[in-house]
């Protein structure tokens, strides 16, 4: 598969070689004590944004830097490492990867010596699907992917408390956005890193979603006390509104699609469904909704069907 990825890259480089400035311009912003955010743009992957659509955070502790999510490419990872080195002399000692999606783990390639931690099922997911995600990223963001290969997390974490350099980090093993979603709550600063469980002002993505499980995870987060919420996509928040917004979207999605399936609409007929204003206003609408139709409608329409009778096979 490595040769395939390299082959794709060569083709892409030939097609796009002239004048591409491959700098993400990663700028840390202090959002809490010791805590810096590298905020991604609220867009879909493109050659303009190089895949930098994800929020990456760095906690500078007395025992080294803890990074939460690693960005979409080897280049991103390298530029992240350089940006952190400008912030502090402390080395990166730990990376937490919240889920299997490529923009969250591919940048960890730039941190081969660092403990790269995630939940067990996420490691399985990256092993199974990582190559395919990576090829797809080459197609979508092109030259920004140069030299990017899947680097597996090398440390499996369990839910519970870990203490790193004076920061007490609670790890929560949730699910629903993907089969395993790692959430980190820094009790020392009250910062909640929700990973993909919470989206803010952006339509949530559903390629690996289980909506019932997702709802339960959102309820868990809603019961937590925090001072600052860092979603994986979209602006940070001092209140619970992004949690409610994410739940509102997946509720709308499921009700609309199961309603359409119960009325006998074809999958292509629901692609252009008009969402209410509050949903239509989210970033990456309606493209994200159209993707969700592909993910969710087949199962919902099957639920509306019944076995035929008098079958002759």
């Amino acid at each position, binding site marked *: 598969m490595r040769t395939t990825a390299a082959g794709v890259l060569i083709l892409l480089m030939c097609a796009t070689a002239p004048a591409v400035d491959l700098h993400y311009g990663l700028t840390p912003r202090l959002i809490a004590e010791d805590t810096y955010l590298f905020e991604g743009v609220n867009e879909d992957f493109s050659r303009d944004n190089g895949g930098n659509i994800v929020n990456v955070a760095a906690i500078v502790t007395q025992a080294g830097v803890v990074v939460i999510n690693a960005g979409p490419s080897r280049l991103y990872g390298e530029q992240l490492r350089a940006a952190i080195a400008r912030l502090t002399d402390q080395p990166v000692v730990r990376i937490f990867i919240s889920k299997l999606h490529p923009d969250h783990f591919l940048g960890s390639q730039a941190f081969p010596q660092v403990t790269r931690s995630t939940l067990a099922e996420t490691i399985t997911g990256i092993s199974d699907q990582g190559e395919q995600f990576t090829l797809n990223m080459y197609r979508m963001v092109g030259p920004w992917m140069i030299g990017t290969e899947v680097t597996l997390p090398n440390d499996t974490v369990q839910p519970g408390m870990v203490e790193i350099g004076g920061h007490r980090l609670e790890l929560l093993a949730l699910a629903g956005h993907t089969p395993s979603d790692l959430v980190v709550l820094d009790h020392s600063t009250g910062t909640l890193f929700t990973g993909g469980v919470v989206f803010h002002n952006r339509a949530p993505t559903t390629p690996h979603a289980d909506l019932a499980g997702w709802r339960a995870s959102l309820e868990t987060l809603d019961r937590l006390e925090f001072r600052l919420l860092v979603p994986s996509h979209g602006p940070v928040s001092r209140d619970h509104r992004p949690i409610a917004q994410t739940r509102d979207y997946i509720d709308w999605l499921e009700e609309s699609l199961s309603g359409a399936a119960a009325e006998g609409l074809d*999958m292509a007929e629901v*692609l*252009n469904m008009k969402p209410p204003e509050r949903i239509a206003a989210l970033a990456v609408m309606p493209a994200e909704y159209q993707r969700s139709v592909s993910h969710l409608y087949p199962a919902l*329409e099957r639920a509306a*069907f019944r076995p*035929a009778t008098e079958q*002759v096979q």
Partner: protein
Amino acid sequence: MRSVQWDTMQRQILDGRPFVFDPRVKVLAPTSAEDSMAVPVFVDASEVEGVSEILVFADLNPIPEILRYIPVQAAPRLGFRFKVQQATPIRAAALSEDGVWHVGQVWLEAAGGGCTLPSLASGSTDWESHLGEVSGRIWRHDQSTRLRFVVVHPMDTGLAPGIPRFHLEEFDIRTDDGVTLARLETFEPVSENPVFSLDLNPEVSAVRVGGRDNSGNRFDARVSE
């Protein structure tokens, strides 16, 4: 919308007969194929008078023809899903009573690989005991009937290494009395376990769905409300 293959399409698939690009033939599909194994498409030619046949094809697919629909007593529109190999136009040609193909189209972006990927079923043995099994439902509307159904079938294109071509070829939708309401001819790119949406003219509470694949396996079943 032109493609390098259009002249070939016009000659081979439309038999070189006269055609017009006609926006009244609507092709609904996503802008980009999220799942290259199952791209949803809905074709609606009901604004064109006297349509006797609809051909759907994708110029740049290795096997361009997707299906041929004969709406005997049905509206000239249908929904289905297909496998796409790369970005391509999806075109629907509706043959009207004046003998002219009315062609509507949409451009589909795709990461690709759908036609040369093995079916999911080819990786398991479970499908064999369910081959040809039908599920579905009927929704009665005022003076028409929406029929939706799915048939269990791997729909192998023959383009995936070591897996022979094996796909459904013919469908026949009939009333309980045996009157044909619609006929459908399907080609390799139609998705695995194909799902169809059809709008039949009479308001009925049940229909029979029958057909066969290219290996001569037949199926028949009754779908009701």
